[in-house]
C-alpha cells in the first residue's frame, strides 16, 4: 500500500480532545505507515468522535467516503470487534495502531469506489453502441427503408442482416449473444441487396426483428429512461399492438397497449392511466418506437368505440377468470 496522506478530525464536546490529537499527530506522525494531518471535521477522512451522545451534523453523518472512530473513556469497551476506537488518555501505540487500521480501511473504501466508477465507465462504453444501434433502427423505421440492411461492427464484420418490411432478422448469433455483441461492437448500418438477403436466410434460423427491437428499447430505458428521439411532453398513440406472441407475455405491455391504442397520451399521462411507473412507460415507448408502432399525436381516424359504462360485476369476473387461468 503506497504511503498516502490522510486527514484526521475530532468531533467532541471536550476542548481537550482536539488539542491532544493534534499534539499526538505531531509527535507520532512519522511512526505511522501513512502521513496524517489534523483538519476540521467536515474535511476529515477519519473522524474521531469524542462522546457517544454527540451527534454529527446531518451532512457529515451521511458521508460514506470517510470512516468514524470513537474516543472511549478509560476502561470502556468499543462494543464490537469491528468498531474502530481508542481509549483515553491517548497512548502512542494504540493511537498508531488506530491510524494504521484507519488507513487500511480508507484505502479499501477508496479502491472500491474507484472500481465502481471504472465499472460505470465500462458499462457506459458498452452502452454507446446500443444507443447508436437504437438510433439507427429508429431512423430506418421512420423512413420505412425498403432495402435489407446489415448491422456492422467496428471491426467490419456483420452482426446481423435485417429487413424492416418483413420485421425479420438473419444472424448466426442467438438473440442474447446478438444483443451482447451489439452492445460491444455495433458501429453502423450498411445497405444490402435482395440477393444477399435471400442468400443469408438459409444459413441462419429466422428470428424476429421485433424481439431485438423490444429488448434494445428496454436496455436503453435502463440507462437513459426515455430514448433521445422521444419527448416527455409529446402525446403518442400506438398504431398497432406489439406482437406479444413473438416478444413474449408482458402484462404491463398489455395495459399500456390497451391505453395507447385508444387515445394519444404523454408519457406521464400514460403512467397515470395505466398505473405503472415512468421507467416501465419509458421502456415500453422506446421498444414500441423501435418496432415502428409509435406515432406522435392522435391517430388520423378515431379508433374503436368510446369507453362504455362499466358492467356491474365485470371487473370481479375478469379478476376471477385470470386467477382461474393462472394469469
Amino acid at each position: 500500500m503506497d504511503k498516502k496522506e490522510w486527514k484526521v478530525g475530532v468531533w467532541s464536546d471536550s476542548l481537550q480532545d482536539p488539542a491532544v490529537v493534534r499534539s499526538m499527530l505531531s509527535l507520532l506522525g512519522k511512526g505511522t505507515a501513512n502521513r496524517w494531518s489534523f483538519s476540521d471535521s467536515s474535511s476529515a477522512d477519519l473522524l474521531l468522535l469524542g462522546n457517544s451522545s454527540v451527534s454529527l451534523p446531518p451532512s457529515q453523518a451521511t458521508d460514506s467516503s470517510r470512516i468514524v472512530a470513537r474516543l472511549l473513556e478509560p476502561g470502556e469497551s468499543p462494543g464490537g470487534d469491528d468498531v474502530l476506537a481508542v481509549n483515553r488518555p491517548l497512548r502512542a501505540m494504540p493511537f498508531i495502531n488506530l491510524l494504521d487500521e484507519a488507513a487500511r480501511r480508507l484505502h479499501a473504501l477508496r479502491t472500491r469506489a474507484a472500481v465502481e466508477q471504472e465499472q460505470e465507465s465500462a458499462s457506459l462504453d458498452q452502452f454507446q453502441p446500443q444507443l447508436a444501434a437504437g438510433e439507427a433502427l429508429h431512423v430506418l423505421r421512420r423512413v420505412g427503408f425498403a432495402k435489407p440492411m446489415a448491422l456492422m461492427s467496428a471491426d467490419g464484420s456483420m452482426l446481423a442482416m435485417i429487413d424492416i418490411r418483413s420485421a425479420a432478422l438473419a444472424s448466426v448469433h442467438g438473440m442474447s449473444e446478438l444483443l451482447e455483441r451489439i452492445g460491444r461492437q455495433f458501429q453502423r448500418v450498411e445497405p444490402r441487396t435482395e440477393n444477399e438477403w435471400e442468400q443469408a436466410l438459409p444459413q441462419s434460423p429466422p428470428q424476429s426483428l421485433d424481439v431485438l427491437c423490444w429488448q434494445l428499447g428496454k436496455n436503453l430505458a435502463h440507462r437513459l429512461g426515455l430514448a433521445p428521439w422521444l419527448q416527455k411532453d409529446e402525446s403518442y398513440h400506438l398504431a398497432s399492438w406489439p406482437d406479444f406472441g413473438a416478444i413474449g407475455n408482458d402484462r404491463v405491455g398489455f395495459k399500456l397497449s390497451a391505453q395507447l391504442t385508444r387515445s394519444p397520451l404523454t408519457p406521464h399521462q400514460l403512467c397515470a392511466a395505466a398505473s405503472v411507473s415512468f421507467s416501465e412507460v419509458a421502456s415500453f415507448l422506446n421498444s414500441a418506437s423501435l418496432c415502428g408502432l409509435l406515432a406522435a399525436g392522435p391517430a388520423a381516424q378515431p379508433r374503436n368505440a368510446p369507453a362504455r359504462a362499466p358492467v356491474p360485476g365485470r371487473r370481479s369476473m375478469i379478476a376471477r377468470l385470470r386467477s382461474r387461468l393462472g394469469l
Partner: protein
Amino acid sequence: MLIGREYKIIVTGTMGAGKTTAIGAISDTAPITTEAANSDQVSSAKASTTVALDYGEISLEGGDRVRLYGTPGQQRFSFMWSILAKGALGLILLIDNSSHTPLEDLERFIDTFDELARDSAVVVGITHRDVASGPTMAQYCEILSARSLALPIFSIDARDRDHILLLVDALLTSIEAAS
C-alpha cells in the same frame, strides 16, 4: 347447487387455424367436439373438421361460469357466427397463415364481428406462421387499421397453452381498458 352468472367467449376463425385445440387448452373439462370427415380438402388438408360447435367451460369462484364456444370455420356455417356473438364477453379470432387467402379471411371475420371489434372485445391470433411465409404481421395490421381498429394481433401456436393464455389475457386487458 350454486347457480351463478354465465359468460360467453367465442373462438372463431378459418378452418384448420386451431380453434378446437385452443378451447381444449383452457377448458376445465375435456371439450365436447363435433367433428366429421373433412369433405373440403381444397380449403384444408385436415382429415376432420368441426361441423357444429365445440364447447368447453371454465368454472369460476362464486359459481359463475365462462362458456367457450368454438364455431365451425367453413363459410357455409357462417349463419351461426353472428347469432353466437350476441351477448358474448369477447371473441378470439384465429387465422391460419398457411391458408390460400389469410388476409381476405381476416377481413371477412372482422366485418362479421364488427360490433365486438368496435367494443375492443376481439383478439386475433395468426397461426402457422412458422410453416408458411405468408403475409407479414404488418399486412394483417393494415387490414385492421383500414377499419380504424387497433386490436391485439399476435403470431401464435395454437397448440401452445401459453399462447392461448396470452390471447385471453390480452382480450381481458382490452375489455377492461374499454370500460
